[in-house]
Each structure stands twice: as C-alpha cells, then as structure tokens.
C-alpha cells in the first residue's frame, strides 16, 4: 500500500489499487492500473500527466460519476471511514456535493443554461441541508462574494450565459464549496479559460482551500500550476502512478524519467532560442501495454531489465517512484541547484 505519510494523521482519502476499465462489445479496456495514493486533510495534491493517462477518469471514479453501464471500478477508495467504491448509490449521492465535490474543465457547458446561478447554488445547499429558501439565498450570495463575483446581490438572479468564462468558473467553485466539503476535485479547472484568467482562478482555489481547510486534488497537465498551488505531486503515465513526491523535491530532482521529461519540456526553463525539449514517441495504446515499465519505449535511460514489472519503490520514506533505476539516475528537474 502506498502509505507514505507515516506519523501524520489518518489520510482523508486513501485510494488503493484502483483499477478502472471500460467494457465494450469487443471486450474490456483497462484505463488505470493499481492506482494508489492518499490525500491528507487540507492537503493540496497535484495530479499531472498527458491526456489519456487516466487522471480525469480517476477523478470521476472518486465521485462515483463514471457511467455505470460501461465502467468497471475495482479497488478501494477509502474516504474517511467509508469505501466509496462499494458505497450504495443513495449514500454516495449524500456525500457528493456535501463532503466531496468536483469542479469541471468547461465552465461554459458545466452549468445548467436554463436555471439562474442562484437557483443552482441554493439547490445544492437544500439537497444536503435543512434550511429555508431565504437562508439558502443568503448563503448563496455569501458564496458568490467569497469567490470574488462583484455585486452578488444582483448577479445571483442572472443566468450562466450572462457570465464570462472566468466568472462562470468562479460560480462553479462557489457551488463546489458551498456545503464546505472536505475534498474538492478540480479537473483541469483552468484549461478552458483565457491565460489572463487562469492564474486568478488558480489563486482563488488555493486561497479558499487554505482558509476553509478543504483538501484539493488538482488534476492538470500544467506543472507550473502544481508548483504554485500544491504541496505534493502525483505523476501519472499510461494509467499508472509513476511518481509521488513533495512538489519542491520533484522540481529539484525528479525520480522518474517521465516526470523529468515533463519538467524539462516546460517553456521558460530552457534557454531562450533553443529548441524546447520534448518527450519522443507516444503513450502505448491501452490494449498494448508492455508488461514491464510502460515508459520504456520513450525513455532515454531504458536498459535491459526495464521489461520487468515495475513496483512503486519507496525512496527515503516520503517519495515513491516506479523505476528500478531511480537510484542510479541523476535526472534533471526544473530547478537547478
């Protein structure tokens, strides 16, 4: 099990050996393989990886939002004292929006277009708490104020189409946080936004998580965002967690060649005018996963032995890496000492 914060309080969320697959007429395709990680109360954890690595699917699985007909979820999702993977639908519904909530990528289409922002905020509250309409409205106005929406008293009666993309994402954040959940899963919350707005939204999420003590699982492909907001980084590759480490450590010295590659391909780090380093090749198709290291075909450090199955190795207690050569390699990070 991936228990790497020994000595600290019990984790809020402990995912163990999460295997998600989708069934289709031709059989079953595995999306994630033995994903394990923990999130401590109030902790901000970044999950990075290129598209298709299973990070969004993992987020949806935690919420119990994968299509029931086609998705198979195996493994354990321990949230406080319950296993979400085996929780009955009715109880899962009671948790969603109250204890765990989610912010989605597309604020343009994630809000119901024919209901006012206020109606959508108050219905979340009233689904989970016994409060009057008036009280719910007051709380909704306060929530809009908290996420920095100007004149919330009037904007609460407006429809989503009357808000800009950034403002809609603020509404989404207000909605996700209105019941004061213990964990918020943010699935690429800034990807669809203007660059100028991205930083504002990231800062807002960070700030709210700090003031309310809400843990944050920040799914993104933007390492820069993780570096700014999170304390720990999970790197996922081809459905597996390949590295888990405190953000500062991984920036200084990544312990998996894929993390290193991601960090090296960040613009701004390489010399001006030089070609931006990239990782050659592409992720193997889900049905053609090699038995050993899934990154070996693209890895500059691959040697004989990489075709063996790779467990997550513990490094000095606080870090994990899925690479048997990790101690032999001196991988470059984003920060040079």
């Amino acid at each position, binding site marked *: 099990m991936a228990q790497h914060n020994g000595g600290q309080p019990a984790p809020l969320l402990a995912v163990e050996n999460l295997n998600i697959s989708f069934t289709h007429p031709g059989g079953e395709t595995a999306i994630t393989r033995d994903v394990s990680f923990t999130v401590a109360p109030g902790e901000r954890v970044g999950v990075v990886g290129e598209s298709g690595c299973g990070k969004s699917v993992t987020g949806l699985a935690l*919420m119990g*939002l994968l299509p029931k007909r086609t998705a198979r979820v195996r493994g354990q999702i321990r949230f406080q004292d319950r296993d979400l993977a085996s929780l009955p639908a009715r109880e899962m*519904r*009671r*948790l*969603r*929006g*109250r204890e765990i*909530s*989610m912010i*989605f990528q*597309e604020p343009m*289409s*994630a*809000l*119901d*277009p*024919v*209901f006012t922002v206020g109606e959508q905020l108050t*219905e*979340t509250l009233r*689904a*989970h708490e016994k409060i009057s309409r008036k009280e719910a409205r007051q709380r909704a106005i306060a929530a809009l104020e908290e996420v920095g929406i100007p004149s919330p008293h009037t904007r609460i009666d407006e*429809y989503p*189409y009357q808000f800009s993309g950034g403002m809609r994402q603020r509404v*989404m954040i207000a*909605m996700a946080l209105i019941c004061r959940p213990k964990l918020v899963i943010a699935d690429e919350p800034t990807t669809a936004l203007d660059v100028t707005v991205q930083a504002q939204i990231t800062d807002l999420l960070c700030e709210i998580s700090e003031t309310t003590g809400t843990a944050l699982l920040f799914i993104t492909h933007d390492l820069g965002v993780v570096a700014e907001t999170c304390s720990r980084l999970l790197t996922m590759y081809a459905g597996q967690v390949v590295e888990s480490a405190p953000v500062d450590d991984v920036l200084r010295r990544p312990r998996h060649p894929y993390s290193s590659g991601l960090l090296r391909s960040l613009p701004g780090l390489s010399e001006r005018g030089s070609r931006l380093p990239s990782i050659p090749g592409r992720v193997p198709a889900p049905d053609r996963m090699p038995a050993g290291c899934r990154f070996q075909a693209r890895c500059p450090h691959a040697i004989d032995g990489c075709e063996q199955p790779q467990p997550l190795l513990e490094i000095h207690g606080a870090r994990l890496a899925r690479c048997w050569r990790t101690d032999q390699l001196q991988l470059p990070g984003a920060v040079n000492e």
Partner: protein
Amino acid sequence: MVTRVKQRMVATRLLQALPILVLATFIVFSLMQLIPGDVAVTLAGENASVERIAQIREAYGLNQPFLAQYGQWLWNAAHGDLGVSLLSGEPVGDTIARTFPNTLMVALYAVILSVLIGVPLGIISATRSGSPLDSGIMGAASLGVAVPNFWFGMILVLYLGLTLKWFPATGFVSPFEDFSQAIWFATLPALALCTNGIAEVARQLRSSLVEIQSSQHVRTLHAKGLSPARILWLHGLKNVSVNLLTVVGLLFSKILAATVVVEAVFAIPGIGSSIVNAVLQGDFPVVQGAVLAMVITVIVVNLATDLLCTVLDPRINEL
C-alpha cells in the same frame, strides 16, 4: 422594459405575417383557376342558355381578368368583407364562425392527446434507453409516423366505433351545445389525428432527453448530489421544454391541415369539409376565407410558441 421589447417583437412579427397572408391566398386563388369546371355553369342550373351563363359571369365578376378578381377579393378582405358563398349566399364570415370552432376543437383535442400520450412514452424511453421497452416504444413510434391518419381513422371507426361501440363512429356535436357530448363524439377523429403526433412527440422528447442526460451540465448536477428524480423532472424537462414546445407548435399546424381529410372520414361539419366542398364546386370566396382563417391561426400559434420559448429559455431573446 423587457415587456416593451417583447411588444415590439410581437408587432414586428405580425407585420411580417401580412405578406405571408397575401402570398398564401394568392397561391390558393391561382390554383382555383386551374381546377376544371365553371361555377357559373353550376349556378345557372341545368339547360341554361349561353346568354344566361354569360350574365351570371358578368354579375359575379367572373369575366374579369384573374389579377383583377384577386385584387378585388384582397381589397374587400382587407376591409373585413370576405364576401358571400357563390352557391348558398351565406356570408363567408358566418361559414367560418360556424365551422372553424368544430375544427379547432378536434385539432386541439388531438394535440392534447399527442402530448398526454407522447410525453410519458418519450420519458419512459429516455430513462430506459437501450432496453427492450425503449426499442418497442420507438419501433411503434416509427410506425406511427409512417401510418396515414385517414387510414388509421377508418380502422378506428371499424374497431372502436362499430365493433366495440365504445365511441360513436360518425356524427358531431357542437362544443357550444353540449361540451361533454362534443368531446365524446370528437374522440375517434382526435385519435385518428394524433397517431403521428404521439409518435413525433415521443421520438423528439426521447432524443432530446437522452442528449441532455449525457450533457456536461447534467454531470454537474449529479456531482452536486441531486436525486435522479430531480435531475430528470426539473432540470431535464425544463431543458427540453423548448424543443418540445417547438414540436407541438409544428404539430398543431400539421394536424390542422390533416383535419381536411379526417373531417371527411368522420363527417364533421368543420372548416376542412367546407374547403373540400367549396373547392369541388369552385366556390372561391369560401375557399379563400377558410384558407385565410387557417393561415392566421397557424401564424398566431407559431408566434405564441415562440413567445413561450423566450420565457422557458432565457438565452432566446430574439423572436
């Protein structure tokens, strides 16, 4: 402020309707010219002399050029005078007032039946999409779209009317005389008219509900922990209501047109059968007046549905 904008939009739409009215009546008038037979010959009676027929032509203005005749009709109609029937002498306005309510009642009854039966079927199909029940309903709906309603009407008369004797096979009671009897007599015609409607409403509702349920904002609703019932009945239905309303609006026009045939099958003294008789006898003032009444009704219904759509979906603020 908003209402003022809406008032202006309604006024614009009504003004836009005027050319449509002129065009529709002009086309009908032109088509009437192509129909064989001469109303003057009919009016003159058997064994009438050529002079007598010419006299009648002269008296009714039938010897004037086509455009002049249409112009005269249009001028009078614009002043509220739809003329009199060439054959019976009854003012066309009275004919419309006598027959149109009957047609409207049957058409409205058919629309209501389409919604009352089609909406539950669509919801059942959408919530169980992919199940045998869904396939069954959708299969029946495809059949319902394809079946001609006059044929289905005759089957209904045979089975429900003559074999089971649940409903009167033919005949009609005016809704102004005895409303419950009127509904009783109108049931078979309405059933015959609504088969296509039920099918269309069910199919459209199913497809828009299925689409909405897999949309991102419905995923958000699940993420908020709302109950599936609330998501379907409140959010789902409000989201598809504009689509549904548009379908129902179009359906009304289609059903109104179909009454022409169904009224003949059931012997209903409606405007449809008036049109058929008038066309056969070349009684053009009646045809023109009846068509005008139908076109105005369709335009008003379309305008009303569009107005309702702006209420249901705040994003629509243009008519």
